[in-house]
């Protein structure tokens, strides 16, 4: 195989653009982890489920394409709230295993529900900007991926604003630092956690829709890879670190693009996972993790 620096830069560009989806998913994982110090394994699945409902509203009710980007995230937010009540709200505080296991159960429930409803076959998602393709010197940039990236930046800005400029964000950050102290200060921690789940769910719904729009199909096969990539992004970025998740999302996307070029599609993921182990050995806290061995 022969490739010069242009190929490599081109794959990096594609990877970074695609990485914005990973960044969104990683952001959602990290938000939930930051709030409750628990992992919601069903999170990416809820995003994909949201994208499915968005797509259904297009095909069954004949709504315009943009409606999918409203209905999808709203449903995903609702699923997020349901997940909170089903897997986290009533679990003993000190028990880590039970909510984790319950959310894994929810992951497979959502996955199987999608497979059951669609008979497991992929459904095509309408392309948003099918013909847009820009040239930047020698490099080409897909218009829809550029839109995906722009969309993600807007969403990230909104999340940042919510967290650092509003009272709700103050409550969320307080709950994440010291749940008991936050409760003593009159912050309704359960409601705050619920809101975080809804917020993260909406993000996941957007990520699911954007993923479907840029890949062109929705398939239950997307659920597990998206979950795993999102988790890797979260760990590489540092659990609970928001800017870490965003940066790691783009970085993992770029690495994936390069590995795809160099090693082909069958082996691409092996190297992404090895990258994770590299981080676990040399920087177990990720890029921006705070304390060692935080749980």
């Amino acid at each position, binding site marked *: 195989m022969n490739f010069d620096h242009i190929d490599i830069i081109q794959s990096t560009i594609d990877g970074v653009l695609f990485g914005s989806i990973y960044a969104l998913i990683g952001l959602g994982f990290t938000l939930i*982890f930051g709030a409750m110090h*628990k*992992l919601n*394994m069903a999170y990416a699945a809820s995003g994909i489920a949201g994208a499915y409902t968005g797509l259904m509203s297009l095909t069954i009710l004949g709504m315009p394409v943009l409606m999918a980007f409203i209905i999808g995230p709203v449903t995903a937010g609702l699923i997020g709230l349901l997940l909170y009540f*089903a*897997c986290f709200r*009533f*679990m*003993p505080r000190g*028990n*880590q*295993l*039970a*909510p*984790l*296991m*319950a959310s*894994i*159960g*929810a*992951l*497979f*429930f*959502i*996955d*199987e*529900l999608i*497979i*059951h409803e669609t008979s497991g076959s992929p459904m095509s998602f309408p392309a948003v900007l099918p013909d847009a393709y820009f040239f930047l010197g020698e490099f080409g940039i897909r218009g829809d991926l550029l839109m995906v990236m722009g969309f993600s930046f807007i969403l990230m800005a909104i999340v940042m604003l919510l967290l650092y400029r509003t009272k709700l964000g103050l409550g969320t950050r307080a709950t994440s630092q010291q749940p008991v102290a936050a409760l003593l200060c009159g912050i309704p921690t359960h409601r705050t956690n619920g809101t975080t789940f809804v917020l993260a769910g909406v993000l996941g719904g957007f990520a699911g829709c954007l993923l479907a729009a840029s890949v062109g199909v929705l398939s239950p096969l997307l659920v*597990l890879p998206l979950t*795993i990539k999102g*988790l*890797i992004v*979260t*760990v590489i970025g540092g*659990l609970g670190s928001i800017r870490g998740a965003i940066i790691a999302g783009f970085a993992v996307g770029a690495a994936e693009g390069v590995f795809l070029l160099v090693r082909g599609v*069958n*082996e691409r*993921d*092996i190297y992404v*996972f*090895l990258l*994770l*182990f590299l981080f*676990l*050995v040399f920087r*177990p806290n990720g890029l921006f993790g705070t304390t060692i*061995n935080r*749980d």
Partner: protein
Amino acid sequence: MTYLLGIFQTIGVHTLLGLSAYLLLLTGQLSLAQVGFFAIGAYVSGILTVIFTWHIFPALAIGAFTAGFFAFLVGFPALRVKGLMLVVATISFSEIVRLFFFNLSWRVNVNGLEVGPDSTQGFREIRYFAANGWEQIHIVGLIWFVVMVVMVGLWWLDRVRAGAVLRAVGTDELAAQSSGINLTMVKVAAMTGGGVIAGIGGGLFAHSTTYVDHHTFVILLATFAVSYPIIGGLRSVMGTLLAVIFIQGVIVEGLRFMGDYRNLIFGLLIILVMNLRPQGLLDGHLLEDMKKLLGRLTKGEKADA
């Protein structure tokens, strides 16, 4: 009869998977790498009997040893981080193993037949049992013999110091560390032990089904592996066996008439059990109650005599 033996076979193999996860869960670590070790055991022992035409027992032993060795290797980086990050690390490990075997093609001519793992086509020719005149009842006997040995071993472990150390780490890491327990060593030891158990399970699985491919070793199987001890409860090895019989025997086989819906029920069941019994079905209170009941019964008999 064949059908019943088939169920026993599945329950046996899944019990081994569950027990391998149980050992690590005692230290409070949730690992989804069990399916990776299972796959290593399956492929290594399969390659040894098929390509190198070894006898089944050394092949199983080497498969288990290799799986244990990889568990040891993965244990060090993975167990430096704890709890939730370990989940991510172990998922990645299982996927690396799966993708490795997905890409592995090693076709060799043995006695005029081309055999060996054929990447996406899977590894088809693991016919040691059939070629050497083993009946299904012998295979099931072998699987359950291994299950019994492992269960007795783990039961015994709970009655010696090593088991107490494992549970100490699982209950409170900080307190365990303060009492001079080397956390990393204990966890890596548990991981290695789990890897060996999963490796034997994998070898037995590969030889009893005669065919494995990368679809077998997806994360779903790892989820099953950890769900058995968690649903059954970590207080006793019997919990794992109980959960395997319940899930494989009742839900997967007993509800066969419900078709696809069984997978939905599996997910819902995990959520339900975790909400109602966060410590598992066979938790500490239930065990105490059973012991009391048993004590009263035997006392009653004595009084009668």
